[in-house]
């Protein structure tokens, strides 16, 4: 490995990407458009009423005061046996108020306007309760879908950015010209890989940072962990792109192969909707897709504050897949100089 040659190709590829204004613009615009679109579509949370949680022990009988409260219209009452879960719900704005009749106490979320209103309604009817505060930002759909959209954008950028470029280089003899120099295929491939990794991480950071100004995204975990899982996912997807493009010389074939690779991931990797309720067969299939692990890992960091060791399953699967794709890609790679 000659570092001078590697950096020269790395730099040339980066220049090529950043000077291609149309592609650069699209790479920035596409995820932003999706995020804006989804935040509008799901801006109402679809709840017709306020949600009040009632903490009840097993077998507890409703008190008259509680019965009176539950007769209020336009309020949904949900019973919880698990106080920790109920408190988590109120801190995430899934509940507007949590009442414990046994202990004569209730919780409000200081940061939620709805919680404030429901508290006024509650206090208008009930008295003698201890007020407890909860705080925490709500998880909106846009927060939940953010890792999915960024992950999907990373996937397209990695697969098409590497796959198409290599096939184009092969088809128009750029690869042949490079092969006639002392540049080795390892130097060439690693420069392509790292250049694309730099590009997607840079672009994702710009999109995340830019949109964060407007959306004020929810973030429980560490940005470092998010960066690592993002980089691992991107590395894995680039390796997959290299593998798909390892031999082909045809634009149309590579287009088909890349679509065949990316579309199932887009639909089945939990980008848009949770896979929790999906059939087991589908979940197993999704586990074979790198995007599933990228999105699930990033989502766990963002919405649950998971650390890298909490998501070690996703980290390990991504590492294993990357090694497999890289090994196969390097083994099958062809400069394809024969006519």
């Amino acid at each position, binding site marked *: 490995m000659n570092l*001078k*040659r590697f*950096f*020269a*190709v790395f*730099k*040339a590829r980066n*220049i*090529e990407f950043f*000077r*291609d204004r149309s592609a650069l613009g699209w790479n920035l615009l596409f995820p932003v458009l999706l995020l804006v679109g989804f935040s509008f579509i799901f801006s109402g949370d679809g709840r017709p009423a306020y949600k009040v949680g009632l903490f009840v022990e097993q077998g507890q009988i409703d008190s008259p005061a509680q019965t009176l409260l539950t007769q209020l219209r336009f309020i949904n009452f949900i019973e919880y046996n698990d106080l920790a879960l109920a408190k988590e719900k109120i801190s995430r704005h899934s509940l507007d108020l949590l009442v414990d009749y046994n202990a004569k106490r209730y919780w409000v979320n200081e940061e939620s306007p709805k919680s404030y209103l429901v508290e006024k309604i509650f206090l208008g009817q009930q008295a003698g309760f201890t007020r407890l505060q909860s705080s925490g930002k709500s998880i909106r759909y846009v927060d939940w879908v953010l890792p999915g959209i960024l992950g999907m954008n990373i996937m397209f950028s990695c697969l098409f950015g590497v796959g198409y470029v290599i096939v184009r280089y092969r088809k*128009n*003899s*750029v690869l*042949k*010209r490079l*092969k*006639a*120099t*002392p*540049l080795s295929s390892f130097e060439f491939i690693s420069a392509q890989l790292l250049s694309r990794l730099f590009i997607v991480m840079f672009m994702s950071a710009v999109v995340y940072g830019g949109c964060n100004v407007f959306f004020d995204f929810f973030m429980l975990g560490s940005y470092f962990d998010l960066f690592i899982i993002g980089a691992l996912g991107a590395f894995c997807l680039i390796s997959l792109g290299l593998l798909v493009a390892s031999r082909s010389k045809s634009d149309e074939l590579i287009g088909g192969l890349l679509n065949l690779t990316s579309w199932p991931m887009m639909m089945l990797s939990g980008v848009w909707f949770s896979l929790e309720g999906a059939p087991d067969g589908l979940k197993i299939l999704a586990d074979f897709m790198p995007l599933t692990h990228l999105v699930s890992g990033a989502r766990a960091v963002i919405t649950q504050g998971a650390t890298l060791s909490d998501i070690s399953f996703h980290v390990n699967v991504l590492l294993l897949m990357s090694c497999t794709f890289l090994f196969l890609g390097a083994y099958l790679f062809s400069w394809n*100089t*024969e*006519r």
Partner: protein
Amino acid sequence: MSAAVSVLSLCKHYKDVSAVDKVSFEVQEGHCFGLLGPNGAGKTTTIEIMEGIISASSGQVLYQGKLVDKQISQQIGIQFQNTALQDYLTVKETLNLFASFYQNTLDQAQLIELCDLGDFLDRDNRLLSGGQRQRLLLALALINDPQIIFLDEPTTGLDPQARRNFWQLIKNIKAQNKTIILTTHYMDEAEQLCDDIVIMDKGKIIAEGTPNQLLAQHFEDVFIYLPKSQVSNELISKHGWLKLTDRIEIASKNVEKTLTLLMGLGVSLDGLHVKSANLDDLFLKLTGHSLQASL
């Protein structure tokens, strides 16, 4: 003088097509060697095997008597027939990129002057004209200061002025005692530049030598052309001259004698044209089809 490159019984088969069939020749050091032939003759396949870009089905290529290996790419310079350059890079950035691949490189200022790149150094590769592109590709071939330079149809698609400029560049390079291996289907190019030539057709060598040797070997005559209207049919058939569409062709070993004869016969010499045989005639004679017509 020693052989810079020796090609021994080279064969290349694609399925049932024989692209190169038992081709052998030697390229002398410091010479400009021309590989001539129509499209599909096997020229490009032959030099790409010599460059180590594609592998031969059988046969060997020796550089100064040694078998070709991976290190050869440090010592040779290559200009391919069709090469795209990376989009969005400028000429200067492309030179820097390729310079980084080699241990020894030619001084960039010298290279820019040699290939006359000074006027468009900051231009995007996509915006270069045909002649500028070929000069950049030549500069890339020379960037590692190679002793042996391969040029595969370097002037195809250039206008006459650009071709002549390019020939001058090649002559300048030749003056530095470099060995040049050139393929072309332009006979005038080979006559201008090449010390030795090999003519290929359908994968085989059909003639080799210096251009003058080959012409002297195959043609004793020069050709005299006269408009057909000036010569009667009787004279044509009596002397066995060749009738072409609008003129007659007289093959002559001695131009002076022939002209004296024509004047003696009272034939007007208006529109007379004398031409010695060129490589195109040679190709026509050897293969029965014209080189240009087969393009």
